[in-house]
């Protein structure tokens, strides 16, 4: 079994037909525990990729409005937003830090607010899945696997059929609204700065990130780094830290862009257990074939017998 549709797949570029000696698979490790929500990644991405403006309401691209829900006025990933910094404000049980005894009288037990506020920030991006549903379902071949193992839309091929959009289990790719000259009608998403990779540069977002929350590199290396970071955080009393999208055994064969999160994925707007829809496609075709044969047999049988 080649696992072309589902399951662990070590080298998606080779599976797509690139010869030996193609560049290693690269990706992002986004460590949200050090994200400060500055949105430099969003700005750098917009600048480098010359992306048109879009407000929080993506159906009104010219309107720079406010979501009214948090410091996040970007809202979501979209056709002109390839990086999106989520901002979450939570009320959580107060954490007691060990105190130093200064000989002062201790405050009485059980007084004060037992909760505290924490802010979570996370820079979301296209996951560049090992098994990318958008790529699988694209009828024109506009979506391709690159030599770097990433997933890329070729804008000069895309006819705007929109199939990739509901196929993505993460809600990443979208159709751009607006005038044709700015790409209106086509599907767009993160390219991992394909034009920079070829020149040996890092993607714009990773270059701009001031805290190294966004790390770019060969995927194997990033996975090792993430494991080490997770162990460190667990050691330092952050048991809620967990990796998301790093596992080659998950529903999409592992993400090319994966995350270290501090809460459940859905808190950040991520699906908790995404599966590439194409996993079930062979079964779908079998069901459709049996159903079509049912139609053929019913029509044929309805002609059996004499006429009145």
């Amino acid at each position, binding site marked *: 079994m080649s696992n072309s*549709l589902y399951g662990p797949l070590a080298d998606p570029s080779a599976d797509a037909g690139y010869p030996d000696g193609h560049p290693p698979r690269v990706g992002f490790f986004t460590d949200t525990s050090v994200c400060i929500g500055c949105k430099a990644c969003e700005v750098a991405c917009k600048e480098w990729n010359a992306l048109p403006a879009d407000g929080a309401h993506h159906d009104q691209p010219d309107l720079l409005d406010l979501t009214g*829900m948090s410091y996040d006025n970007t809202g*979501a990933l979209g056709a002109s937003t390839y990086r999106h910094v*989520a901002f*979450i404000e939570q009320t959580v049980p107060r954490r007691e830090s060990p105190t130093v005894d200064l000989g002062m009288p201790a405050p009485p037990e059980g007084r004060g607010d037992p909760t505290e506020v924490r802010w979570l920030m996370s820079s979301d991006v296209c996951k560049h899945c090992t098994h990318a549903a958008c790529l*699988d*379902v*694209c*009828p*024109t*071949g*506009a979506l391709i696997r690159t030599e770097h193992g990433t997933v890329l839309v070729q804008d000069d091929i*895309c*006819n*705007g*059929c*929109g*199939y990739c*959009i*509901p*196929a*993505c*289990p*993460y*809600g990443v*790719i*979208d*159709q751009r609204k607006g005038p044709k000259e700015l790409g209106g*009608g*086509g*599907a767009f998403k993160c390219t991992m700065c394909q034009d920079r990779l070829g020149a040996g540069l890092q993607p714009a977002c990773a270059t701009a990130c001031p805290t190294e929350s966004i790390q770019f590199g060969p995927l194997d290396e990033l996975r090792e780094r993430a494991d080490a970071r997770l162990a460190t955080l667990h050691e330092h009393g952050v048991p809620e830290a967990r990796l998301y999208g790093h596992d080659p055994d998950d529903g999409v064969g592992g993400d090319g862009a994966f995350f270290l999160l501090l809460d*459940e994925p*859905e*808190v950040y*707007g*991520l*699906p*908790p*257990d*995404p599966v590439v*829809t*194409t996993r*079930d496609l062979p*079964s*779908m075709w079998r*069901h*459709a*074939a049996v*159903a*079509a*044969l*049912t*139609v*053929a047999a*019913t*029509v044929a049988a*309805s*002609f059996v017998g004499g*006429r*009145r």
Partner: protein
Amino acid sequence: MVPDAEFTSYYGRPIIKSPTWKVPDVPLYLYLGGAAGTSASLAALADLTGRPALRIVGRYTALGGALVSVGALVHDLGRPTRFLNMLRVIKPTSPLSVGSWILSPFGTLAGIAAASELTGLLPGIGRLAGVGAGLVGPAMTTYTAVLLANTAVPAWHEGYQELPFLFAGSAMAAGGGFGLLATGDVTPARRVAVAGAALELTATAVLERRIGFARKAYTTGRPGMLLKVARAATVAGAAAAVAGGVLGGRRGRLAGIAAGVLLNAGSAATRFGVFDAGMVSAKDPAYTVVPQRERMAAREAAAEREV
């Protein structure tokens, strides 16, 4: 009634993107493509068994359905001038690519058969093309189910086993319904219509029973109402079709026409309802999160049992 499950989300925002497919373009194409497929098969066999009236109605319905389908699909593209890119590659992993390669030859063959019918020219070629369209017809009725199911849209994906049969039934009800409008012997069309209605109703019932959390998308709100209307029209249409067969004569024909109209209304409402259910389930993050959480919990429980 499924209780409102506890779940968290990012400010209630959707997780997956809703399809950008337009209404009525896409649901109309689901309905007409199915009606065209069944009609082409009916026309081919009507031709071979000497039922000219049924053949004529079938050939025109097949071409009309295919033409409007292609028009709706091209209109739905973000870049309509690039519609030919649909035939740039053949990709079995893309139901839309496979569908384009089903719809194109189907439309061409149905067009030749209908042109021969209209002009009376080249009846032999017309018959050959008609038989070809009739053979491709059944594929036209079910590939669209895979088109919807092969997405991350919960109400569509989780119904991938039932949707092909639901669409097959809906297509037979519609195509058979068009056949009932013909004069002369329409017995085969009547049988196809009644069998289709039965399959459509059964598949819908099975889908709603088996689909789990996404059931709510099919049974409440606008899609729930559309599907209720569809069910009523389909039941009434099937009853009228049976009555038409029993009555015979002029009253039988009138009942047949009523059946044809009702069954087509039912088939169309079914497609709009299924389409709408998908849109509802895409917009609400609960449909994505709750079943995935249930899946994870079941997996953890299974792993614990093994330990």
